[in-house]
């Protein structure tokens, strides 16, 4: 039928098995290396695209042109930046805690790539697929907080320390409402496995299935998720005018590059989780009525990975729009917003959803 990347993957698998014969360990080894290269390539290419996108859109918001010298429309600018950042000196400071200082980028990248590996890019296009997938994603993304705290603490700089503490407080606070809004959708879906969750959205996405509680949860997730990326109105940890650059002030060259990379990819990952839980992941948009069957078939012709990437980039663009539209919050406003507004609302909302699910279950029996 249509071209699906899954066919390509199974073709590679079969031809490798033909090639190696009995040596199945060799097949596994080659496939592991291929998986590693695929994830790494996707990770880096997405980061380059997101960096260029951000710079271009930021320029449009501020009535500037943005990068336009390297390649047509500045398309090669992020690649040039990448090589330049690789060739910059890694400055080692006199007083800092060197072990923790260089451990922090490892933790941040491990958290980011570990979460990235569990995204479902399309039908069957999935790396890590645990039966507690969504729980695993929430858990492993917390590694980033430890990385940020270590980075700020080990630099021996007052600004990095303040930046790291603010970032830690912000990330852990907003993790609660993001977690509870995901929990709300798990109530509706009845599974922690991401494949099951996405399969359950075949006819209509959870955003529409869950009615008002789902929409409230989606809005709360968008706000909390945006805060988790440390960007936009929530960029207190690296408030330039107050704290130099926040927790990564003392990092230079490629060690800074890792923080930069992880920040952009986290934007993608947060949007990806939102897409999988609320917007149906790679499922096409269906109207669940008899008269719309032609429309539904038309939607099925678009490959699943196009649906996923399209939805994720829509959420990423929304997040960029928010980032360049609102002024920065103060820390007391930030914590007030989370603890006194978002969290109580999301708790009540979760109970509403539980009531709705119980009502449906009672109807079916």
């Amino acid at each position, binding site marked *: 039928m249509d071209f699906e990347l899954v066919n390509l993957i199974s073709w590679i698998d079969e031809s490798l098995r033909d090639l190696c014969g009995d040596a199945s360990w060799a097949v596994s080894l080659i496939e592991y290396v291929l*998986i590693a290269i695929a994830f790494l390539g996707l990770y880096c290419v997405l980061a380059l695209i997101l960096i260029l996108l951000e710079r271009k859109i930021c320029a449009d918001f501020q009535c500037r042109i943005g990068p336009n010298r390297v390649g047509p429309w500045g398309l090669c600018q992020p690649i040039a930046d990448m090589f330049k950042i690789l060739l910059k000196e890694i400055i080692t400071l006199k007083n800092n805690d060197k072990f923790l200082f260089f451990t922090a980028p490892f933790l941040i990248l491990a958290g980011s790539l570990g979460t990235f590996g569990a995204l479902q890019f399309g039908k069957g296009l999935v790396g*890590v697929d645990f039966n507690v997938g969504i729980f695993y994603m929430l858990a492993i993304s917390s590694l980033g907080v430890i990385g940020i705290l270590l980075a700020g603490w080990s630099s021996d700089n007052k600004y990095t320390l303040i930046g790291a503490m603010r970032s830690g407080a912000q990330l852990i606070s907003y993790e609660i409402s993001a977690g*509870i809004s995901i929990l709300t959708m798990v109530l509706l879906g009845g599974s922690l496995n991401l494949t099951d969750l996405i399969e359950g959205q075949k006819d209509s996405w959870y955003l529409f299935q869950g009615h008002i509680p789902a929409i409230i949860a989606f809005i709360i997730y968008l706000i909390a998720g945006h805060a988790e990326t440390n960007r936009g109105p929530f960029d207190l940890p690296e408030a330039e005018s107050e704290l130099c650059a926040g927790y990564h002030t003392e990092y230079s060259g490629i060690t800074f590059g890792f923080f930069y990379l992880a920040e952009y990819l986290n934007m993608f990952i947060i949007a990806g989780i939102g897409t999988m839980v609320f917007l149906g992941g790679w499922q096409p948009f269906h109207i669940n009525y008899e008269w719309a069957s032609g429309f539904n078939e038309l939607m099925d012709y678009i490959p699943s990975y196009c649906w996923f990437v399209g939805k994720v980039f829509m959420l990423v663009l929304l997040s960029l729009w928010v980032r360049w539209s609102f002024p920065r919050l103060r820390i007391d406003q930030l914590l007030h917003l989370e603890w006194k507004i978002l969290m109580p609302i999301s708790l009540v909302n979760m109970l509403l959803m539980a009531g709705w699910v119980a009502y449906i279950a009672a109807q079916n029996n």
Partner: protein
Amino acid sequence: MGSSEIFVVVLITAIVMVSAAMLIAWWAAPSSKNAQKGETYECGIPTRGTSWMQFNVGYYLFAILFLMFDVETVLLFPWAVIMKSLGVDGLIAVGFFLVVLVLGLAYAWRKGALEWK
């Protein structure tokens, strides 16, 4: 291939990527020693004292509150999965659990732990 193996592969990829990039930078980038370069960069003038000292206790308060609600989320996940089969009974049982938790939040709120000072 199982998910656990891919998980290990992904983690190893992250570690290899960071180490490889650092090695390339260490090999390819210029390097020069300079007494000024190793100084802490705060605002240009020499820094006073160490940064490893006491700081605002407010952060700890929020961390403790976070711990309470994060453990709550962990406990609620299994409940959420089987909510469909539990029906109203599950809702009532979790309602008691949440009431105790919200009492704790109300206490913290009343005591002013949620205010930033």
